[in-house]
């Protein structure tokens, strides 16, 4: 099945141009996929067999995890946890994006602002940010605001740093073009520096998203026991390992889905990033 999906995604033009080489490419792709499918199948079989020999508290079998997953869906627990997790994640991450880009741009444009803020940014980068969770609880309590704050605090620094690097890395030639055509400071930023920083900003978003996911789970375990983190916490405490693993798989799915969403946004709205990445500048 996966083999078929792959053929469909090869663009028509590419097929025509590479017509002669197509079979070997396809065969290589098919081989890769085949190896991966076999790998997963072998792993699941081994797991099923090993899990069957062990105490189910230590390791649940894949079939037990699947049954737990179905039960969680049937009782609506998983959907509720998922929705709550997404609410924490998206709001915290969205705030981190806004603040991260605004501060990053300011630092990239102004040497003074950069010098003023750099010590704090470096300090926060060096701090294991999870250590701030108790402080955030002191400031924001144990509700939604606190969970959003944890996600925000974990994600924002990478976005700031990457944005500021990207703005500073605006090619000199483009700055000369801006100067030649008398662009105002604002237009220079809007039309040149900011778009030119987009590839850097997206690397910052990718790193920040990874940290935001950690923040989300930590917050839902440590700030208030709710959502996906809460689900993991509860079933862990009850030694219901099959349910715990089903929850972990769901958390992974949240990570995969949001990462794919980010790639989709880049491909949809900034197609030139991919097109120019090998040659850098047109």
């Amino acid at each position, binding site marked *: 099945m996966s083999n078929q999906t792959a053929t469909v995604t090869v663009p028509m033009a590419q097929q025509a141009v590479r017509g002669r080489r197509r079979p070997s490419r396809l065969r290589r792709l098919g081989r890769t996929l085949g190896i991966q499918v076999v790998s997963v199948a072998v792993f699941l079989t081994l797991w099923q067999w090993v899990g069957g020999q062990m105490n189910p508290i230590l390791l649940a079998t894949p079939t037990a995890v699947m049954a737990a997953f179905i039960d969680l869906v049937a009782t609506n627990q998983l959907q509720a946890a998922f929705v709550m997790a997404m609410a924490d994640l998206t709001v915290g991450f969205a705030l981190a994006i806004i603040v991260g880009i605004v501060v990053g741009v300011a630092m990239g444009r102004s040497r003074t602002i950069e010098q003023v803020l750099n010590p704090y940014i470096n300090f926060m980068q060096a701090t294991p940010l999870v250590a701030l969770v108790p402080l955030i609880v002191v400031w924001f309590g144990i509700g939604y605001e606190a969970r959003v704050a944890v996600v925000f605090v974990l994600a924002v620094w990478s976005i700031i740093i990457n944005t500021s690097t990207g703005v500073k890395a605006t*090619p000199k030639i483009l700055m000369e*073009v801006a*100067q030649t055509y008398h*662009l105002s400071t604002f237009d220079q930023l809007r*039309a040149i520096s900011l778009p030119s920083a987009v590839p850097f900003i997206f690397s910052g978003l990718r790193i920040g998203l990874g940290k935001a996911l950690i923040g989300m789970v930590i917050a839902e375990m440590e700030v208030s026991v709710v959502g996906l983190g809460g689900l993991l916490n509860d079933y862990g405490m009850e030694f219901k390992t099959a349910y715990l693993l089903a929850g972990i798989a769901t958390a992974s799915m949240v990570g995969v889905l949001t990462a794919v969403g980010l790639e989709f946004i880049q491909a949809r709205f900034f*197609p030139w990033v991919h097109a120019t990445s090998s040659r850098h*500048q047109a």
Partner: protein
Amino acid sequence: MDTIAIRVEGVSRQFDQTDGQGPLLVLDGIDLSVSQGEFVSLVGASGCGKTTLLKMMGGLVGCEDGTITINGRGVHGVPDNIGFVFQEPGLLPWRSVTGNVELALQHKRLPGAKKQEIVRRYLEVTGLTDFAGFPPYRLSGGMQQRVGLARALAVDPSVLLMDEPFGALDALTRAALQVELGRIVESVGSTVVFVTHDVDEAIFLSDKVVVMGTRPGRIRAIVEVPGKRPRTREEFASNGAYLELRNRILRLIEGVPEAAA
């Protein structure tokens, strides 16, 4: 008699060296004047300061010693109504060809329809009409340079400054663009200063070739090119005077004194 478009008087320029060897004199006592409507090329070996001189005329590099005036006004910062074509195209990959040309008009207070009309006109002049909606990275190097030229022309420049615009192109594209540039400049009638290290290109396009020497950059000679612009390939190839001129300029670049030639 002729109106002077660009006047360069006693311009010197030094750059600080990073290794603490003291400043390096890049340009030394340059005097040059370019008449309205004239096409002047600056040629010389790498490092003779021709690009620096051009960027000083365009206000992109500050002028500390001496004065440069364009249309009678001193150059401090980028003057109004100049177009600059860079060595690299310098296009924005996130904008279409049209959007890139529009960038030149962004700071001008003109109605949108008027801007669109200007952009359309110069896309046509540079043969880009069919590529208006393309992103720059889908175009060949020659096409990209055409966009850079269209962008420069869009400001209706009284002076067009060009910094080795065809330097990175293959020989065939280059030859084709030289002919086309000659035609375009003739039709818009602007004054052009053109930096190149290709002597044939300089002679083919110019009224006057300024030969510069290296370290420090000084003007070795200013050579008038006979015949009217725009020239055709045929007359350029068949007229022996151009070949003679080419040899003379090459000797000047190498530093052989004129009398010995």
